[in-house]
């Protein structure tokens, strides 16, 4: 391993601009003549708009335009949904049109229906207050179960009972038969709480229309600029694809919430042509709560059947998803050999902010179901929870689960074993007694999670309803002086691609890492790519880069052969040097690069000049990172407050490119998972008002809420891509909620505990348990 190659904890190349305040986030960019947009949003969860009078606003100082949905209708198309799911009866999902600005009625608090464009943001805000709207407030429903009941408020005509689809997967009859033969059935009702992603940089957009060329530029906080361009061109119909440039500059976190193509960026772009000026929009945090896609929000009844030895026979789950269902059901097998699985999902419209991908997107929900069932099952059967897991682990690979996925490799026992050693599980009893002496209840919880990353084989996701393929592209441009630009269709918004992608190129080409630049996030520079989410950039994006580097090496060897007057087959390339096998003749990387461009050593008929290669890589399978997280908590019996006193994570991410960055990803993921388990929850009241609409009401995990963590890895090389990478971005968020809740319920002795397990919730649960006297 070289000092900057694969496996080295290289300090990040991108950090300098961030620690000196010289990064370029979208709101840091101002265009000449820029105007500002402010959106008027519904204060009601559900209302008909009977009339809008924009005249008083239009006459306010500095106002350039006041636009409503009526101004956009017929001019631009609706926003789209990236996946098309079919119900079990074969009918396509019942999707209501979503215009960029609502017309006729508004369906959630925060639904935008008008926009003011003005010289300054303050003027736009002031003017928006003068827009007179006549609402007819309609009954609203925020709870998905209530939304499906007869007589519930009907949100979209296209979806009776507000039901978008009723999907299922697996063999219902086989599962029923397995349950009939079961010795033990463990049942749980689970609420996977609604979360607000809250990347720290609020979403922002600048639309800029160039009338001279008829082309548009959009600066946008997006995780996938090319997909944004394709959608805005092909579906919204704003401009042909070749006349639209999308730039995603530095982006301050995404976590899935910056995947969707949102109304505001589309409107800013359209308005820039309308007013003939660049138009900037930046979300307030309060606006983010109402306008960014939320995450999770599933209600699930799950049952697991065991035989007398504790071997799992079957699993069934019935989920009602508040506007969201992703890869959920396909990971219900967890790390376990489960012969039969059946899962049903109803996806339901409610008068709440739309739900979309949030770190893990379906995998945290699946893991929570499986790992809670395992833990509760172990307690009900009085078995050791680690032993029950071990007994049921999948041990041979490849393993075909009953729910589509074929796991390629893994060693679940190894990560469990290592985690138990690092967490000193043997000493837990002693620590528990020590806590009891201080009036505290101590508990320990496991989460042996699995996820599907490296998304994704295009054919496979196509069959699951995806609108696009999920390959990735890379281009390697070698300059005549030997420095290298790597163009990738992935986008970095915290993941450190400018370092990790450069590590691969540095190692393969034998050149200093400082001689490699990573170019991303601009559709005029990078031809196409699918962006970054689902822990795909390493496994898929870097595989594309590896493929392009192979081509570079092959071409450079041809150039070197002419330079060294040797046969191409005799050229060896190692540590940045081309040499002729069995001789001392060699040429350095930089000389070969220069000769590729000056082209003096070969004729154009023999070899094309230049050194630039591209590749598209479509993965052959998902990757399956897995591991074991162990959480240890102390619960204060008087206040119900939970303190996480230790966290141990042992993950198998396959080959690790940069262990420092990977550990950072685990830390961040765990923090978000702990946030879900203990603090965070988007709460709607009965009228559909978001009660938790700011950082003052929605509890973001802070430094003193979280523990320092012990993070380690085990390695099974991923056989499904050339680099052996599995991906690490979501593991923490997937593993953590079950580990925390398993630990608290272990401490307090009752399984009835919903997330977020706030002090109040834990205290209430404690009142029903018998543990308090034990501690006192």
């Amino acid at each position: 391993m070289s000092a900057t190659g694969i496996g080295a904890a290289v300090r990040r190349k991108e950090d300098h601009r961030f620690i000196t305040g010289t990064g370029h986030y979208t709101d840091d960019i101002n265009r000449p003549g820029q105007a500002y947009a402010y959106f008027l949003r519904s204060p009601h969860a559900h209302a008909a708009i009977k009339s809008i009078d924009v005249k008083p606003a239009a006459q306010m100082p500095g106002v350039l335009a006041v636009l409503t949905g009526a101004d956009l209708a017929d001019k631009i198309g609706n926003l789209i949904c990236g996946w098309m799911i079919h119900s079990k009866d074969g009918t396509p999902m019942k999707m209501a049109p979503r215009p960029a600005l609502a017309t006729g009625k508004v369906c959630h608090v925060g639904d935008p229906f008008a926009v003011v464009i003005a010289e300054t943001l303050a003027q736009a805000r002031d003017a928006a207050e003068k827009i007179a709207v006549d609402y007819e407030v309609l009954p609203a429903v925020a709870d998905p179960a209530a939304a499906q009941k007869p007589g519930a408020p009907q949100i979209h005509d296209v979806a009776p009972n507000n039901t978008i689809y009723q999907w299922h997967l697996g063999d219902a009859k086989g599962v029923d038969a397995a349950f009939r033969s079961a010795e033990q059935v463990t049942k749980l009702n689970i609420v996977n709480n609604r979360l607000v992603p809250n990347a720290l940089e609020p979403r922002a957009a600048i639309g800029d229309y160039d009338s001279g060329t008829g082309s548009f530029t959009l600066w946008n906080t997006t995780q996938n600029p090319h997909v944004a361009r394709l959608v805005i061109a092909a579906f919204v119909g704003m401009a042909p694809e070749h006349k639209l440039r999308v730039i995603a500059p530095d982006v301050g976190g995404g976590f899935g919430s910056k995947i969707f193509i949102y109304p505001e960026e589309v409107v800013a772009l359209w308005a820039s042509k309308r007013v003939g000026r660049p138009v900037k929009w930046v979300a307030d945090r309060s606006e983010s709560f109402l306008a960014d896609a939320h995450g999770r929000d599933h209600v699930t009844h799950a049952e697991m059947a065991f035989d007398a030895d504790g071997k799992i026979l079957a699993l069934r789950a019935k989920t009602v998803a508040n506007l969201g269902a992703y890869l959920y059901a396909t990971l219900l097998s967890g790390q376990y050999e489960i012969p039969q699985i059946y899962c049903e999902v109803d996806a339901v419209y409610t008068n709440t902010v739309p739900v979309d991908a949030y770190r893990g997107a379906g995998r945290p929900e699946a893991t929570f179901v499986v790992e809670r069932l395992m833990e509760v099952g172990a307690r009900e059967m009085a078995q050791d929870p680690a032993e029950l897991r071990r007994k049921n682990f999948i041990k041979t690979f490849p393993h075909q689960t009953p729910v589509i996925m074929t796991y390629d490799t893994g060693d679940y026992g190894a990560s469990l074993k290592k985690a138990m050693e690092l967490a000193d599980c043997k000493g837990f009893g002693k620590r528990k007694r020590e806590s009891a002496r201080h009036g505290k209840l101590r508990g320990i919880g496991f989460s042996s999670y699995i996820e599907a990353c490296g998304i994704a084989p295009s054919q496979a996701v196509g069959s699951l309803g995806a609108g696009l393929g999920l390959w990735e592209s890379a281009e390697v441009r070698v300059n005549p002086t030997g420095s290298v630009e790597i163009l990738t269709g992935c986008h970095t918004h915290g993941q450190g691609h400018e370092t990790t992608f450069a590590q691969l190129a540095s190692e393969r080409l034998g050149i200093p890492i400082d001689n490699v630049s990573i170019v991303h996030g601009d559709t005029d520079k990078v031809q196409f790519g699918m962006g970054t989410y689902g822990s795909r950039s390493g496994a898929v994006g870097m595989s594309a880069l590896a493929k392009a580097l192979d081509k570079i090496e092959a071409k450079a060897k041809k150039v070197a052969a002419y330079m060294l007057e040797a046969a191409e087959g005799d050229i060896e390339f190692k540590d940045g040097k081309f040499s002729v096998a069995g001789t001392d003749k060699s040429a350095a990387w930089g000389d070969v690069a220069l000769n590729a461009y000056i082209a003096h050593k070969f004729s154009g008929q023999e070899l094309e000049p230049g050194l630039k290669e591209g590749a598209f890589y479509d993965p052959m399978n998902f990757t399956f990172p897995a591991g074991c997280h162990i959480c240890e908590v102390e619960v204060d019996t008087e206040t119900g407050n939970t303190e996480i006193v230790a966290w141990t994570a042992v993950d198998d991410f396959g080959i690790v490119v940069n262990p420092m960055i990977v550990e950072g990803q685990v830390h961040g993921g765990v923090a978000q998972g702990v946030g879900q388990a203990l603090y965070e929850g988007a709460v709607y009241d009965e009228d559909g008002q978001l009660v938790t609409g700011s950082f003052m009401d929605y509890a973001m995990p802070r430094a003193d809420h979280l523990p320092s963590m012990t993070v380690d890895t085990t390695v099974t090389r991923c056989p499904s891509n050339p680099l052996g990478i599995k991906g690490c971005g979501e593991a923490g968020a997937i593993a953590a909620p079950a580990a925390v809740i398993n630990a608290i319920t272990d401490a307090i002795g009752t399984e009835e505990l919903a997330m977020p397990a706030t002090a109040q919730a834990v205290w209430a649960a404690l009142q029903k348990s018998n543990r308090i006297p034990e501690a006192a």
Partner: protein
Amino acid sequence: MAGETAAVSMTVNGKSINANVDPRTLLVQLLRENLRLTGTHVGCDTSQCGACVVHVNRKAIKSCTVLALQLEGADVLTIEGLAAPDGPLHPMQEAFRENHGLQCGYCTPGMIMTAVDIVRRKGHDLDDRTIREELEGNICRCTGYHNIVKAIAAGGRAMRGNGSAAK
């Protein structure tokens, strides 16, 4: 905008500045829009997140929570002024890089400005708990704080070496 503006002068990163601003202009807006010092970020609208922390008269404050006009004559230090553009980094900046105390970078300027202030108030040898408690006013969504805590402890020690605490 009501149309009227008011004059304000202060020192920002060692330079005297004069500006005519709408009276409702916040310090962060003056910094970002008038002076184009965009390293100071805005992450919320309720003074919770700390992305906008700068030093005013050698104390860390949230620049989203103070009007520019309140700071007549003040001495303001932002992330851009913490180290000379072409000179060595401040030890706290270096510690954040060395300890991977940042991912997306958006909270980072506020974190670093807060961290320097913590060292100034609490000394160079900071334990884990003190750092975590002192970070109550800064939110990071990426790092889980683990490496930020490590970075601040290391940065605090390094600041003793080069006398930066006096800065």
